[in-house]
């Protein structure tokens, strides 16, 4: 009984920190409508800043706390709201989820760059009052923990009063419900948003400072994940109720501590020792499944800014051919290491294709793509390697691939079935929870699963030795162990799957998927069984993720169980796929290439520059190189708010007008081919070829537009402001009246001109 009470005390202490983290999330969501996935990252960087102030620069504890919790963290919140989140108005739920993911990765990348750029470093935050503690029922309870409990209660009480009993709180909540109506009633939504982001970030900072000492040596992503653990409490409160969130946080803290008590910190059941880490994800999944959800939701026409055009099959086939030809030409010029980077990118593009179907077409979210890669890997490994742990096949078999896709489809279906009634953010969180559960309980599992069915013994090897090796295919007499051949195989697979997806999008089935995304309510009233359609799409997408994942694994050859399966890699891939253009096949291609280029190629270029110019080593390697590696992808993600349809759309918009000058465009394409031939034959250098081609991409369209201005008149006028928004987005001005007069050919235009001339 005493043990029970002691663990209860510890559970309350842990729950208190979760409560602070979770209520911060609730404040941000209920007052801005954005689920701040970056909450954990704000907590982490705040913990690092506190460590820097207190232990690095030896400021007093109160001063360090005030500077961190009351100045730095709120400033981060205000900065995010001003610079990033305001761009999310009128964007889809996917975009509103992706931007905070980008912010998370940017902040964590920045923290890595500042504090850990030289690799491992021991940063060990201390508790308030060090190791001083009370004895409660024979259990040591640190003053640090007691302070946490006190702060949690004060936070919950204070927030309740703020949100439900104060004028500012009403204004904050009204900001989410109807921003314009609030403005018409004299409210100041921008100021209210700033306040809510400052408070939310301040609470994240406080949670980070309280949680960091529990880790021992601070690890950035591990601390961020600790804050993720508070999600079930926030979701339990439906992201709106502070009191229920507080209770949920306590339940969460108590559950983890009771598990430690019963399992002796996981040592009693070795096969389930990671269950402790999976408990928050399991509770999150359960909370999402059992909480009542809103009824079928519709969508108001023209609500979002995302727009995706659909290519014809002819165009898709033509572009597929261009891609295969371009890849063949490009790899012929590349050295081995560059081909590997390109192949890595193509493998990631294959994985991203699954998101085009699921997110781009159907509007659903999967934040666990790498989990399906892991599942596919395990399945293929059973079939192609066997239980002895020794490779018995030299080739990845078609049977193994089909089996892996089938199992992924079934697993995807099993996950989707209970989660089907969820949409958007909630479905995303459910898949993220699923990914975490699989990571902790399956992928990190090193004990083989043994059992028997009808007397037949079987063994399923998971990551028994901590890593798995997958052979590459050897099909049609071609040995794809050769990197260049494997790159071309993946390119052809990408094109074929891409064509199939375009075919789906243009079919009746595709139109139904799009209709479901645009208005589930209207679809249901037309007789469409939405649950069945959603299930089918989720299963197909899971199978594609498995296929892509298997190719990615075969590209890597050997994969460790801690390689990309912990959830962050899935977040990154999802983010980059949306940034690339989630509704386009070319968006998936760009996503894979970006990831590879930004995380490997660019840093390698700067390392090379650093070694060539030793006096500028710090600038090239530590400065630009690491910054590009750690923060680059996230910064691209943050820009998404400006162009929610993605980079592929921007590129297409930029080049589409060139169809009006077919001869000029053909001449440009032909000269690229000629230059490639010269480079291939060694007449000009590869870098020269690359620089000329890249330069021409920027220069040639402008030159053509300059030569034929009459054909591009509409393009030149395209940058003008949407007239519907003038007067709403900013005050109506004199030059606006002149513009309207001019465009509508009203007499006022001539009058103003004649006034000016007279």
């Amino acid at each position, binding site marked *: 009984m005493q043990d029970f009470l002691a663990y209860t005390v510890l559970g309350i202490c842990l729950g208190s920190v979760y409560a602070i983290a979770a209520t911060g999330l609730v404040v941000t969501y209920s007052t801005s409508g954005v689920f701040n996935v970056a909450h954990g990252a704000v907590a982490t960087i705040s913990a690092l800043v506190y460590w820097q102030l207190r232990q690095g620069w030896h400021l007093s504890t109160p001063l360090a706390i005030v500077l961190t919790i009351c100045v730095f963290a709120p400033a981060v919140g205000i900065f995010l709201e001003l610079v990033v989140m305001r761009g999310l108005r009128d964007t889809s739920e996917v975009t509103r989820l992706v931007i905070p993911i980008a912010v998370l990765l940017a902040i964590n990348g920045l923290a890595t760059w500042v504090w850990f750029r030289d690799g491992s470093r021991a940063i060990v935050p201390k508790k308030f009052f060090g190791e001083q503690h009370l004895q409660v029922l024979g259990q040591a309870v640190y003053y640090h923990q007691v302070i946490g409990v006190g702060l949690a209660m004060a936070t919950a009480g204070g927030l309740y009063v703020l949100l439900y009993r104060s004028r500012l709180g009403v204004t904050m909540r009204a900001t989410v419900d109807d921003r314009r109506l609030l403005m018409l009633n004299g409210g100041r939504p921008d100021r209210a948003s700033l306040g809510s982001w400052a408070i939310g970030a301040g609470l994240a900072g406080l949670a980070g400072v309280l949680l960091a000492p529990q880790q021992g040596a601070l690890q950035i992503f591990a601390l961020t994940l600790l804050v993720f653990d508070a999600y079930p409490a926030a979701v339990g409160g439906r992201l709106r109720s502070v009191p229920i969130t507080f209770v949920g946080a306590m339940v969460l803290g108590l559950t983890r501590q009771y598990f430690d008590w019963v399992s002796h910190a996981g040592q009693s059941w070795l096969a389930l020792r990671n269950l402790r880490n999976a408990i928050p994800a399991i509770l999150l999944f359960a909370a999402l499944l059992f909480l009542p959800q809103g009824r079928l939701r519709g969508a*108001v026409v023209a609500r979002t800014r995302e727009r995706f055009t659909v290519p014809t099959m002819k165009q898709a086939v033509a572009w597929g051919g261009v891609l295969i030809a371009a890849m063949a030409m490009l790899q012929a010029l590349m050295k081995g290491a560059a081909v590997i980077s390109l192949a890595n990118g193509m493998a990631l593009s294959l994985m991203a294709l699954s998101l085009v179907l699921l997110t781009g077409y159907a509007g659903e979210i999967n934040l666990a793509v790498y989990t399906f890669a892991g599942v596919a890997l395990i399945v293929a490994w059973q079939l192609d390697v066997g239980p002895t742990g020794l490779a018995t096949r030299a080739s990845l078999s078609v049977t193994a691939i089909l089996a892996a896709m089938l199992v992924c489809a079934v697993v995807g279906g099993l996950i989707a079935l209970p989660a089907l009634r969820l949409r958007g953010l909630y479905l995303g969180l459910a898949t993220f929870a699923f990914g975490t559960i699989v990571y902790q309980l399956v992928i990190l599992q090193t004990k083989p699963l043994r059992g028997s069915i009808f007397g037949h013994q079987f063994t399923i090897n998971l990551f028994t030795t901590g890593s798995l090796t997958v052979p590459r295919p050897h099909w049609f007499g071609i040995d794809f162990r050769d990197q260049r051949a494997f790159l071309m195989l993946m390119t052809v697979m990408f094109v074929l799957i891409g064509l199939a997806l375009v075919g789906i999008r243009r079919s009746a089935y595709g139109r139904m998927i799009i209709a479901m995304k645009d*208005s589930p309510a209207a679809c249901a009233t037309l007789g469409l069984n939405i649950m069945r359609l959603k299930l089918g799409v989720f299963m197909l997408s899971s199978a594609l993720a498995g296929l892509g994942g298997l190719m990615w694994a075969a590209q890597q050859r050997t994969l460790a169980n801690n390689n990309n399966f912990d959830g962050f890699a899935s977040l990154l891939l999802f983010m980059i796929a949306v940034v690339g253009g989630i509704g386009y096949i070319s968006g998936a291609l760009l996503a894979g290439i970006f990831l590879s280029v930004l995380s490997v190629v660019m840093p390698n270029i700067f390392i090379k520059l650093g070694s060539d110019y030793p006096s500028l080593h710090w600038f090239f390697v530590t400065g630009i190189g690491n910054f590009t590696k750690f923060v680059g992808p996230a910064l691209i993600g943050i820009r998404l708010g400006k162009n929610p349809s993605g980079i592929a759309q921007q590129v297409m918009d930029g080049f589409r007008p060139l169809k009006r000058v077919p001869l000029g465009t053909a001449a440009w394409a032909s000269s690229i081919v000629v230059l490639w031939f010269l480079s291939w034959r060694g007449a000009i250098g590869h870098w020269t070829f690359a620089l000329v081609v890249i330069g021409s991409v920027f220069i040639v369209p402008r030159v053509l537009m300059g030569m034929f201005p009459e054909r591009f008149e509409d393009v030149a006028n395209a940058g003008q402001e949407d007239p519907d928004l003038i007067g709403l987005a900013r005050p109506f001005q004199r030059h606006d009246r002149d513009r309207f007069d001019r465009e509508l050919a009203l007499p006022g235009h001539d009058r103003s001109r004649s006034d000016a001339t007279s």
Partner: protein
Amino acid sequence: MPLLECQHLNVAFGGAKALNNVDVTADSGAITGLIGPNGAGKTTLFNCVTGLLHPSSGVVVLDGRDITRLPPFKRSRLGIARTFQRLELFSSLTVRDNIRVAGEIASRWQRPRVDPRRETERVLDLLALGHLADRDVTEIPTGMARRVEVGRALMTRPKILLLDEPASGQDEAETEEFGDLLLQLCADGIAILLVEHDVSLVMKVCSYVHVLDFGSTIARGTPNEIQANPVVLDAYLGADQEP
């Protein structure tokens, strides 16, 4: 026997009663009006009939069958189609594809099967939307967008059509033309339940009218009876106003 019967429907949102013991019927081959001030519960009633909302008590009967607990897609397959007060078009699709996809959905369960492509062209002609067929649905005027919703509903070949303010956004001539279309559909045997603020349209096309106010039925009768009903005048104009 009426095609659609709503019996003693009750819906509450928190403490507010959106529908209070409401009875509404609609007959095949007739247009039934459902009018009332904003917030009277008209759209809530539509949501109950189509299954987007479950009443706390009361039943919805279609063609003699209790459909109160059926999900929306099954009700649609029994012959209920609707339009929405706040437009629910498929904003990523063109006008033509908005209508066509409805036919493609219907062709999965409807027998005899009709070629969705051919039926789409027929409906586009019927609603005079041919000139807008290839336009993005977000680019067309509201009045035309409401016609697209009607066309989409017609693609399911419904027994009853629930129209929620279909004339809003249409000018006088278009409304006149639209009224004729409704009468033509009605002559083909379809039951129509019409929510509309344009009283002249209601009076022109409806054979029977129910009037809701604050979730309760305050009057029912023929258009002429409704026009002369003092309770209805009070609800619309206020008790202290001179008629």
